[in-house]
């Protein structure tokens, strides 16, 4: 009965591959942003599929805050080696050292905001005219309004009121000198789709997505991994807990969840039963109701 009809994961896959190929065709110097999180891992996998047997015809760009989980960096280096990709790393620390960015102070200090400066500098330095990102529209209300091909002005800014209409799958990547695009091949994927696709395609992911023992500091209802990057306050204490991460960002702003899930099947069951959104574990979104919208306008991912 479902002859000549794709299931929804294959349809999303076909759409994402189309967008990635379109980006490689329409732009001179595209790059794919890689964070080591599951969305960028899935996007990289799709890029391999899009151009096989050729290698991925653009570099992977990692904006390294210096506050990553060591497991993420280890995973990144191993993956790049295996698939023969060209990885470019630009460090937020360098932006701080050169005075381009200023470190936040206080116990909740995060380098999340500073990434934007390093990112925009890197895009300019590398003359990147299209930066593909793994952002999904289901993550956040500002992202719900994004296009596949999202136009950015000379300052890297997003103007939500002045977006190009996007019809059928006819993507318009024309631009003036100095402008660039952000491209989102996973726009129509949900968290569940990403996990199901990882399971279906047997894609390798960092082990911190699975259950493990870790020293945790409870702060504002979030379970933060204790590390050299956070300051444990007087009324707080670090305790060993059985946790895993639902999203992976900086150690300073990514909360863990208590979980015994040690397989993809168990993670999928957990996601299906979850009562909170994925970004509920991210303190960077909790700073204000419009945190994402404000950061996006300034040039964030």
């Amino acid at each position, binding site marked *: 009965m479902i002859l*000549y009809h794709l*299931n*929804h994961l294959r349809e999303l896959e076909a759409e994402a591959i189309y967008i990635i*190929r379109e980006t490689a065709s329409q732009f001179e110097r595209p790059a794919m942003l890689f964070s080591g999180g599951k969305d960028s891992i899935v996007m990289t996998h799709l890029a391999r599929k899009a151009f096989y047997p*050729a290698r991925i015809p653009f570099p992977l760009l990692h904006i390294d805050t210096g506050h990553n989980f060591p497991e993420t960096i280890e995973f990144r280096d191993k993956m790049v080696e295996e698939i023969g990709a060209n990885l470019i790393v630009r460090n937020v620390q360098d932006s701080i050292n050169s005075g381009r960015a200023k470190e936040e102070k206080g116990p909740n200090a995060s380098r999340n905001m500073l990434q934007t400066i390093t990112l925009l500098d890197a895009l300019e330095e590398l003359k990147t005219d299209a930066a593909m990102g793994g952002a999904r529209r289901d993550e956040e209300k500002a992202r719900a309004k994004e296009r596949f091909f999202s136009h950015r002005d000379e300052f890297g800014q997003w103007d939500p009121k002045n977006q190009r*209409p996007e019809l059928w799958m006819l993507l*318009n990547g024309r631009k003036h000198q100095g402008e660039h695009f952000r491209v989102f091949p996973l726009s129509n994927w949900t968290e569940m789709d990403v996990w*199901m696709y990882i399971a279906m395609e047997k894609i390798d992911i960092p082990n911190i997505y699975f259950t493990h023992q870790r020293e945790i500091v409870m702060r504002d209802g979030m379970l933060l991994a204790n590390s050299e990057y956070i300051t444990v306050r007087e009324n707080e204490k670090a305790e060993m807990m059985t946790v895993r991460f639902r999203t992976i960002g900086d150690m300073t702003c990514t909360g863990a969840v208590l979980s015994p899930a040690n397989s993809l099947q168990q993670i999928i069951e957990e996601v299906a039963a979850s009562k909170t959104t994925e970004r509920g574990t991210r303190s960077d979104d909790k700073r204000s109701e419009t945190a994402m919208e404000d950061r996006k306008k300034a040039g964030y991912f």
Partner: protein
Amino acid sequence: MSDFSKDGYLNMELLRFTTAGSVDDGKSTLIGRLLYDSKQIFEDQLEAIEQRSLQRGFEHVDLSLLTDGLKAEREQGITIDVAYRYFATPKRKFIIADTPGHIQYTRNMVTGASTANAALILVDARKGVLEQTIRHSFIASLLQIPHLIICINKMDLVNYEEAAFEKAVDEFKQLSSKLDIKDVSFLPISALLGDNVVDKSKNMSWYNGPTLMYLLEHLHISSDENHIDCRFPVQYVIRPQQTEYHDYRGYAGRISSGIFKPGDKIKVLPSEEIATVKTIELFGEEIAEAYSPMSVTITLDKDVDISRGDMIVRENNVPNVMQEFDVMVCWLNSTPLQVGGKYAIRHTSKDARCIIKDIRYKIDISTLHRNEEDKKIGMNDIARISIKTTVPIFFDSYRKNRHTGSIILIDESTNETIGAGMIV
């Protein structure tokens, strides 16, 4: 969301639908209700809208706040073009293109409708079918959305009376006789109270039809794609710079329509060279039959000069190859369409330039009358125009093929997408 099994999830289909209705028709409430009753709302999202409802002094949680957008929009009380929402049931995953109902509705609805399998059109049961219901239905038919669902909403405000529903249905049938709509369903609902949205209404025993959710889960969409006319626009040519693949030439793209198989005799446009499909593959895996909307790589039995913008078709079934043709255009920009104006045009993977030869007529989308005198085509206007392109375009009529029958026009100085066209 707890009843997803892994295997069940792999058999789900994707259904894209768009919603239309004016500001007060309860569109946001209906979407909020679909998300809420299908248990797609997370606790943190619900808390946020409970708080905001409380702040605003509302008695109930206002479900329409779930679709509330950006600060920029709230400040001005408007919605910026299309927002996308997602929900899933064990049968299907749904993508809603949520388009606002204010003045820019044509541009927005056309955008949302361009990829939709179904359109939900809301009608206020107290007001019946209005001019704008016809506008929305006209756009749905123009964009060839295969399934139309007319929701007669606010049934609670007409005491759930069958007569009010029947009256709206009759009005719609009369007014829509001129439209080209394949499949229409009518539903009496109350988005506010949830009647016939996800759960069957207890207040309308006279209604024996499906609920909205049941309908969305069971619309027959597998025949929406064209599986007859083989069209493969070449998007990218894969030439690995690796010795082991020295002679490899793969033509990458997304199948627009038809079913391609290894061994098929094909013709390449525009060169008209004939070749045979050697393999169809993705990531090293060979595919026995490839069909829309798959993204694949095709290899041929011999070396043919093929580049992006070319099209691979069956030898005995070719599209039109022409430089002059007519298009129904929806204008998306505040700068009006110019007769004699030159624009960039994009069709499948092909880029070209075109000149507007003539405006044949403009359509009054409230009365559906053709106006041959009024040649001023501005934002949100729909008109039939004649164009001439710099190179031949390989097209089918939009009615026959949404992928090879659609174009966009781009302003060459601002680079904005300013027109959406359906080839007649």
